[in-house]
């Protein structure tokens, strides 16, 4: 049987970058092939070529052994190749069914084109049920959670009855249970003979579902692992081309000194004391404390209120009750400027929306939050600003041609480093990181972990919100688990386990 999809010697150059150089790939029917690589390795470009977004400069693509040329997205969909982008492409004001059938609505009335509403709702309902998306197909997409919206995207792809399904970081906004459901669905699709290209930075998922792993590095094939050889370390080695030791820097620290966070010796007085904090009437007061030098992980499912808590602490969300004290001094709530003055910095969940001005350059993004530090009498001191940006870029090893580069042109990992650089020219007292490593490559991840560790050792209190349990387990000295807007429990390092966290995160109901 010929392979479903064959990619031979595909190259693609963009101005200034050779994104792909003679890449080969084969996908069998009913196979889940994971394509991994650091950001900038060329995965996205390859997928976009398959989906007809880009045209290759050289090389051939064959479907069922027959060469095809894919000149556009419609053509790719017609051939049965569908790409689900990491960033959602949904019309928020339309309902679920409307989105699933957007652009190919079944109609009646000939040229009048009345939409056959009954049919799209019935068909959509069948697909969403299969995905475990319980919401009504008449619900507006903008009212759904990000996780649910992702499922709508997947439902759209399924409704296209595609033969090759390309998923780009599909789980980055999904909860554990949604992820499980997705994997179950992928299993079913696989049994139907659909080939699946699966792109993810979450190697744990790759280990779990991939039949084979293809690793790209710098736009070239870096290697391939059959099912039997797939393991975290092997993938990472291929990705970075070297042995990456001490991935979670906290662990090394712990191993050498025994007790994490105690190196600084100032562990007694809490650096941060939160009392009865509430942002919604439907939610009880939240209280916790973080000591200086401590990294506290915050786990929980999507919608459990972790991001809301972070936003309330930082003051971009209004609180209705409660107090926050830094080093015993209460701070005024509800104003980011006051939080910043008190040393509370927030690395937001969505760097592209909340963290960065994508159209602006690296320099301006780094200086915007600390502009007072590089200005006199309200006038920006341009040379100081440029120097600050350069120093921070060097310190965080932001890979950019210069500080006047537009931030939107950088890779995800480098963008995240810019967000960190934006704050960390000042010394944080409480650093809140909301999903700090989402969608970034292992190299950058490792650097960000090292940085968190360094900041904690310098005496900062670190609150790390994450859906990545590996990360929570690897980095945290203590873990708070949120469930439905409340702290459901607290786990000391010794008591940490995925099971314990998930138990609390799901409301502590044993099944």
């Amino acid at each position, binding site marked *: 049987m010929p392979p479903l999809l064959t990619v031979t010697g595909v190259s693609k150059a963009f101005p200034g970058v050779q994104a792909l150089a003679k890449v080969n790939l084969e996908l069998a029917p009913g196979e889940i092939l994971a394509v991994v690589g650091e950001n900038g390795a060329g995965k996205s470009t390859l997928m976009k070529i398959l989906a007809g977004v880009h045209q290759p400069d050289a090389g051939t693509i064959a479907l069922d052994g027959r060469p095809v040329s894919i000149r*556009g997205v419609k053509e790719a969909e017609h051939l049965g190749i569908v790409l689900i982008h990491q960033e959602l492409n949904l019309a928020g004001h339309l309902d679920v069914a409307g989105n699933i059938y957007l652009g190919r609505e079944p109609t009646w009335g000939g040229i009048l084109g009345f939409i056959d509403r009954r049919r799209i709702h019935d068909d959509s309902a069948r697909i969403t049920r299969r995905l475990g998306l319980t919401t009504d197909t008449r619900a507006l997409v903008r009212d759904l959670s990000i996780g649910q919206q992702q499922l709508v995207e997947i439902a759209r792809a399924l409704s296209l009855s595609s033969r090759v399904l390309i998923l780009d970081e599909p789980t980055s906004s999904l909860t554990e249970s949604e992820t499980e459901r997705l994997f179950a669905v992928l299993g079913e699709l696989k049994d139907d003979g659909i080939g699946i290209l699966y792109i993810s930075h979450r190697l744990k998922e790759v280990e779990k579902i991939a039949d084979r792993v293809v690793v790209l590095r710098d736009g070239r094939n870096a290697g391939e692992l059959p099912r039997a050889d797939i393991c975290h370390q092997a993938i990472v080695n291929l990705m970075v081309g070297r042995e990456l030791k001490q991935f979670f820097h906290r662990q090394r620290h712990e191993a050498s000194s025994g007790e994490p966070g105690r190196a600084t010796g100032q562990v007694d007085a809490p650096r941060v004391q939160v009392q009865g904090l509430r942002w919604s009437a439907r939610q009880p007061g939240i209280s916790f404390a973080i000591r200086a030098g401590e990294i506290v992980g915050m786990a929980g499912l999507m919608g459990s209120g972790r991001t809301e808590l972070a936003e309330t602490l930082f003051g971009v969300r209004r609180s209705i009750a409660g107090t926050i004290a830094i080093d015993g001094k209460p701070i005024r709530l509800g104003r*980011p*400027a006051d939080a910043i003055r008190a040393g509370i910095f927030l690395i*937001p969940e969505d760097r592209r929306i*909340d963290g960065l001005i*994508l159209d602006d350059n690296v320099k301006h993004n780094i200086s915007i939050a600390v502009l007072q530090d590089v200005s006199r009498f309200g006038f920006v001191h341009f040379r100081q600003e440029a120097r600050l940006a350069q120093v921070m870029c060097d310190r965080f090893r932001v890979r950019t041609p210069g500080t006047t580069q537009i931030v939107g042109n950088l890779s995800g990992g480098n963008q995240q480093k810019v967000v960190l650089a934006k704050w960390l020219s000042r010394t944080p007292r409480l650093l809140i990181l909301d999903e700090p490593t989402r969608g970034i490559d292992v190299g950058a991840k490792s650097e960000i972990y090292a940085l968190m560790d360094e900041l904690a050792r310098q005496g900062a209190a670190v609150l790390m919100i994450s859906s990545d349990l590996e990360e929570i387990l690897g980095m945290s000295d203590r873990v708070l688990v949120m469930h439905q807007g409340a702290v459901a429990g607290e786990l000391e390092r010794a008591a940490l386990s995925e099971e314990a966290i998930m138990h609390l995160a799901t409301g502590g109901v044993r099944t």
Partner: protein
Amino acid sequence: MKKLLGIFLFMLALYGLILLALDPDSWADNRRNLGQRIGLEGILCLGAGLLIIAGGVDLSIGSVVGLCACVFCKLVLNEEYPLPIPVAAVLVMMLGALVGFVNGFLVTYFRVQAFVVTLCGLFLYRGAARWVMDDEVPFIVTHVKPITDFCRGSVLEIPIYLWFLLILFALASVFLHLTVHGRYFYAIGSNERAAAYSGINTNFYKILAYVLCSMFASIYALMHVVHYNSVEPPKTGETLELYAIAGAVLGGCSLRGGEGSTLGILIGTAIMRLLPNLTNMWEIPSTLEPTVVGGALLLCVIFDEQMRRGVGWRALFFRYARSPRASG
């Protein structure tokens, strides 16, 4: 900078064409006339541009001009307590600031879309203007005559109005390009959420942008009274908001916010004035003047959008001319 160079050359070309079409004896007259008109309308474009850069838009500018002009006349011509002109001028500028504050407050605290708020303002302030003057044309000539005579003059061959605009331009440039506050305008215009997450008091700066825009409109209103010596409550300032926005957009301000520069706005204003001047020279019927302005604006915006995507004219033409995708 490259973008500015493009419209700058366009402006020079227009002026060159005007000179070509014109008898050299009238060059000086025409130049003075143009300088005066640019000096006047540039005030509005600067105000609108500052606001657009901060991500806002103001459709009420024309009505604010009308209101401020009427209130100024009312204050000066008041039979019981006629106010001296400087006092009336300051009060009118404060009125402008107040109107801007109301616009900004509605946009920020009530979260009504700027377009809608200022569209309502367009009606509200026009009505207020007509009510203040009871739709009568005030007789203001004698009061402002000395100022008018002074302002119609020139210093170093440059009309006073243009000098005045250049001073405002310098102030606005310093504010927008050199200060922290200007940087925050850009940040809020580009990505308001990221600005808020950077600790910037976004509401304050947005209101400030509306206040500045309306204050510039009130300053224009004063100049208008001085220059034209007449105010028609139902008409004065009408559709000027559109010319102001058009000038700012021509000058490189994006209605998406966060883009543009004071120099660009200045050039945009000039082009907005040069175009009708040229149609005049070429004896294109004056009835077609708005069409020419609209067409030129459209072309500029299309060109700008293509440049932004790094496409350029050639690719633009070929993409649509021989796209293989056209069949699908």
